[in-house]
């Protein structure tokens, strides 16, 4: 099942993060992160708990504010200008670990609310596209249910459809499968694989090794607020460069 991908981007590097620093009060969560991503690249971020993975990708759509360095998304620099932030958020979709669906709205309303009010589409157009995406993630028959009536895997797929209906160019995934039961993980990973292959620029925080090996162009390993190693999946798992990486891999592979 092949669908159309994201709309074309006209920049060489769709994500540019330069020397990004972020403090939570006294605590420095990001200590100079550099990352450049080309359109269509799929990046997987790994690292121990508390290493700043979530903080970093949340800086990319300004859910967190960085205090030093520059972040340029699809040619727009994230600054205090609220209009820039709004514009970036229209191009960048995010999928959360806890789904964060709106419980008081039906699945279809969840998906079409932003397209109608942010993108200013007509209801018909928004619903048409919403149904298309629901079909693509495999649950068109759930359109008129409420989130509370769906399984975790179904909810996460609705969350993806909600993000994708906004037609973003960049997708950020923050551990989208770690709140799911094992049998539901696969259905979500299948969608993610599908998206990775159809040309979206993706940054995913995930510990799913199969996914990383199969579709990632690069794997980034973070520790203590810094990028420690950047490598191809093959090399990352088979002969990592850094001691810290080896230690981490040993720990997660033991399980």
């Amino acid at each position, binding site marked *: 099942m092949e669908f159309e991908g994201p709309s074309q981007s006209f920049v060489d590097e769709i994500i540019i993060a330069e020397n990004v620093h972020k403090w939570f009060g006294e605590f420095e969560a990001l200590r100079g992160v550099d990352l450049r991503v080309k359109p269509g690249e799929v990046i997987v971020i790994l690292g121990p708990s508390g290493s700043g993975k979530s903080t970093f990708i949340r800086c990319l*759509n*300004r*859910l967190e504010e960085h205090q030093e360095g520059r972040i340029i998304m699809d040619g727009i620099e994230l600054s205090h200008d609220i209009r820039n932030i*709004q514009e970036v*958020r*229209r191009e*960048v*979709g*995010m999928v*959360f670990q*806890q789904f*964060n*669906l*709106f*419980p*008081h*709205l*039906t699945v279809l309303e969840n998906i079409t*609310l*932003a397209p109608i*009010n*942010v993108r*200013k589409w007509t209801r018909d157009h928004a619903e048409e596209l919403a149904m298309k995406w629901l079909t693509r993630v495999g649950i068109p028959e759930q359109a008129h249910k*409420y*989130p*509370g*009536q769906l399984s975790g895997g179904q909810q996460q797929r609705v969350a993806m459809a*909600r*993000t994708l209906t*906004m037609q973003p160019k960049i997708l950020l995934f923050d551990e989208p499968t770690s709140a799911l039961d094992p049998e539901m993980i696969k259905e979500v990973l299948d969608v993610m694989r599908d998206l990775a292959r159809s040309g979206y620029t993706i940054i995913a925080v995930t510990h799913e090794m199969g996914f990383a090996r199969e579709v990632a162009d690069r794997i980034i390993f973070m520790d203590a607020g810094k990028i420690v190693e950047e490598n191809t999946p093959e090399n990352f798992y088979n002969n990592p460069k850094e001691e810290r990486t080896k230690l981490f891999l040993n720990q997660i592979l033991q399980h």
Partner: protein
Amino acid sequence: MTTNEELTTPKAIGRGFNWQLFLQDNLTGSWMQTVTVLLLAIITGSYVYGKYEELPIVTAVVVALWILGIVSIIVSEIFHKPTAVSRWLKQNLLTSFANSLLTLFVVLVLVSAVNGIWQWSYVNANFNPAETAPEFRSANGATWGVLWGARKLLMTGWLEPIHSWRVWLGLGFILIMWLFTYITSRPALKEKLRVARMVLNGFWLLSPVVLYILLAGISEGAYNVTGTITGVAVLGAIYALLWSQKVIPFSWGSIIGTVVAWPLLYTIWWFIGNSGQFPPIDPDKWGGLLLTLIIASSVIVLAFPLGMILALARRSEVFGVPAWLIWPVAVAATLWGFTTTPELLATSRNLVEQIMSFWPVIILAIAYMIHRVFNGNIVAGVGTTFIELIRSVPLITLLFMGIVMAPFFSGEGVSIPKPWLVIVGYTLFSSAYMAEAIRGGLQAIPKGQYEASDALGFNGSQKMRFIILPQALRIVIPAIVGQFIGAFKSSSLVSIVGLFDFLGINRSIVSNPAWLGLRLELYVFMAIIYFTGSFLMSSYSRKLEVQLGLGDR
């Protein structure tokens, strides 16, 4: 695990009736139990005896039924054939000795209470409105005639009878609106009657104006051209602001509608006024149920949006005015303020006035608060201060202040009718509590809801309108309806500041020679009305919760 089962299952459950166990359970189990049961038996026995003297037949029937119940249980236990009735009796009324005695006691109390009410309100009662004077009254019966005789006072107070039709019209208007709303919100018709529902909502929005015209009236006067132009300018400015903030999209239809709306409505208003059909009514003449309903519904309608604004203000994170701006402005204002001090000092008559002439230090204190406590967030500062101030003052004080202090603010010769002042005071009071309830709802919304809305690109007001408020308000429906019911019932407090609302009108009714002292009848009637109103509101709130709770399934 057979050993475990053997241990936990009691062995001695035979089919036969065990007298020893039975007595132990009911009477001889403990010292306290024996005494309690004996005491209960003595009390119940003497009460039954007393009642038997008073109401022989009723008491005999109750006791006979009680004995019959016990016998039926005993029989069914002995023959192991419990019937539905005996099982129910055993489980609910006659569980043990003590419970059986209590049942008898309580049933007798209830029966005699019902009997007493029946005797007073019907058997011995006098229903003739013409026979309310003391010589017609029976010693232990109600004199219901007062309700009919005093109906005008009870319902509308001192409103002149020539205006009564306006009240009826207003009532009819509201009832018809309700009826239509009810019909059009039936699930089967909801989609088909979309347009009708919109028209109806428009009428609901207009209904305060309609009711104002009916109940307060409009005075005649010249056409106010300046006011009209100002109105158009204000509406246009609001439109421009909303449009520039991207809250509403631009369209020629909507802008023409906005500009024309004000002159159109004002012209209609002016024509109605000059037609002389609805001459002004002095609000101080309102009274009785009419006044109670006007106060309660105004407070409800005004306090809810005000409370919402206050709650949002208190939680807002905008407008961080930096310290370098706060302090220079504050110091400048203080210095300017001190220029008045020499004059005030010269004219002050006592120590208090001398101290008060140094009032500008308050500006510094406020600046310190805004800087330190609220981090420069003036919106949150104002909201929080207002809420806390209002909540730390009793309602009565607010009402008194409103009425006593209004003349100082309203200028020479203008006297604002008391009901308006009371409505303002009560609305401020109610909105502070409403704000806190709504804030509670806002705090219950998980952080993820805000983040998901941000990530999808909603702006601040959209996020509130579509995501946060619908969920928060649903959580606080019980608290808000509690406030509404409170506003309805506690509006009787206004009788303390000299208004004659539904409860307060009592005083003037019972001082009429024909109805002297007929308090009980009036209070019973009022209790019924208050109960009905409150009950309707709370059952509507439960219905609303179920309707809005769909998403939680």
